[in-house]
């Protein structure tokens, strides 16, 4: 990190979602109805957060999905709290006018887990569907974490910071060697549990998968490539191929606490401008253990 972000005193409950300026509001059930609250959200599509697809880059969209879905699940299990275990998103639009509006509802509340379904539409484009996602969370004892909220819960959209850095800078992401992309685990990227924020892992998976596909030899449209892991220990050359991350699945297997964090990519194959990338995210400082596994569909745009 070179911009001093890691030195800020941050509110870990909000810092990452505030980067994407996510506004959230609780939608309580009707009086007398025994059901968990729903949650609404709105995120602008700021110029510095747009990706090659023309809209909010998918990692950013997934950060808002994680923030909203995780909080929704947490509200459903209070006084206990949650940690996200998986997130699955189908992206139907990469180009957004913005702002994006999110809506989440609890699909299932069990003893050990909660599942939420979320829809994302482009409010600035006639509520065009942008994504559908499912967030699964494990129920945890919150321990000493302070979980006091005014209900119904709301957080306003924070003002645009004209000096806000690009996502790669904010999330401390830098190219590694070969098909590896690294993230420095700075303080502002940790969630309230002190571990890497799920949204940060999503942004890392997005950036890493796109870099891996850009490093693939150019193929004629409709061509097929097989699984390959770049073996040459060299930096990926300057990308010339425009690609964007689309459908993404993340399994949060273990917490990333130490860092640095490395995303190691394997392009499993591609055809007709669509590549499937396996992204294994490791906590290098914690005996290199696998912390997150992601599948990312990368599209030529």
């Amino acid at each position: 990190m070179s911009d001093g972000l890691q030195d800020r005193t941050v509110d870990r409950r909000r810092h990452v979602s505030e980067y994407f300026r996510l506004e959230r509001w609780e939608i309580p059930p009707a009086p007398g109805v025994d059901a968990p609250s729903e949650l609404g959200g709105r995120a602008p599509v700021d110029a510095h957060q747009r990706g090659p697809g023309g809209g909010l880059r998918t990692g950013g969209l997934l950060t808002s999905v994680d923030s909203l879905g995780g909080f929704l699940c947490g509200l459903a299990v209070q006084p206990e709290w949650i940690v996200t275990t998986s997130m699955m998103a189908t992206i139907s639009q990469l180009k957004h006018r913005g702002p994006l509006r999110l809506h989440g509802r609890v699909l299932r509340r069990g003893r050990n887990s909660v599942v939420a379904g979320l829809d994302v539409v482009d409010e600035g484009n006639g509520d065009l569907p942008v994504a559908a996602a499912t967030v699964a969370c494990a129920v945890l004892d919150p321990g000493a974490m302070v979980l006091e909220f005014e209900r119904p819960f709301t957080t306003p959209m924070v003002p645009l910071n004209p000096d806000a850095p690009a996502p790669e800078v904010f999330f401390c992401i830098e190219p590694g060697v070969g098909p590896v992309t690294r993230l420095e685990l700075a303080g502002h990227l940790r969630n309230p549990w002190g571990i890497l924020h799920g949204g940060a892992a999503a942004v890392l998976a997005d950036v890493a998968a796109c870099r891996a596909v850009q490093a693939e030899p150019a193929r004629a449209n409709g061509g097929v490539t097989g699984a390959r892991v770049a073996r040459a220990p060299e930096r990926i050359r300057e990308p010339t191929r425009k690609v964007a991350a689309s459908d993404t699945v993340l399994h949060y297997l273990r917490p990333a606490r130490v860092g640095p964090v490395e995303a190691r990519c394997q392009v499993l194959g591609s055809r007709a401008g669509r590549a499937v990338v396996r992204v294994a995210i490791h906590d290098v400082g914690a005996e290199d253990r696998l912390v997150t596994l992601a599948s990312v569909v990368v599209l030529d745009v």
Partner: protein
Amino acid sequence: MTFGGFPPARQLLGDLGMVAEVASDSEARVRTRVTPHITAADGGVRAGVLATLVDIVGGAVAARVLQPDWMATADLTLQVVRPAVGPWVEARGTVLRRGRTTLVIEALVFEVTEDGSDLGGAHEGPTPVAWATMTFAVLKTKNPASSIQMASDFPIRWAFNGDGFDTSITDAVAMSVVDAAGGRVSLPVGEYVFNSFGAVQGGVIALLAEVAAAEALGAARGSGISMVVTDLQVSYLALGRVGPIVTRATVLDAGGEGSGSAVVELLDEGAGGRLTTVVNVGATPVGVPAAAVS
């Protein structure tokens, strides 16, 4: 191998002729022959059939890892990399993480020969045709003594035996399209499609969602375009026991620029319309000139 009478004498897994091998405490393989009865419009094995394959391989690994406990599939994702044309397809599952309440498994699917040997040249390793992940919820046994006893020597091999299909798999399970545009498809419930819980097995649920999404997306595009499902993200919320299981689909994008996407909800109509499953689906058109699919 049977688990407390499962599978019954005539069952989908038997007609798929699945052959299974558990190689160690954390690895298993399951394969099936590719026939026209299980393929989609692009000639590759249907995503729902691949989901069935990976669900079985995941279950084989999970049963081994978790014994004496049992498990239920909580979510399953599948990405088809390219059409799987066979002659056989084999799913190879491994454990990613075992936790107190969940088990996460990854499976790669390869084209193989009948004896499970890899296809491809001597200088290149096998390349996957699909990739899947699954989360299983751990179901604690109340009485370990009554749990299924498993063999201790590896490899453990078994086969699901049946007559094979004389019709498409969707007809074999008696799936019917009620309303293509709305993605409304109905599946009667019975022993033929049950899992060891006496509920519709996860792979069949995925197949139902695949058909519903392909119908809805195809109708939304029009012009006789067939949509082939390439991505499935399945969240299993409740068991489908009573039936019929009915679907409704919401098209997110009909695929004006190539691929399309939809969300399919599955409801157990006989259980008060209870929502059992939500599936996010991605699909690509076939029968369209390559230049139009960019």
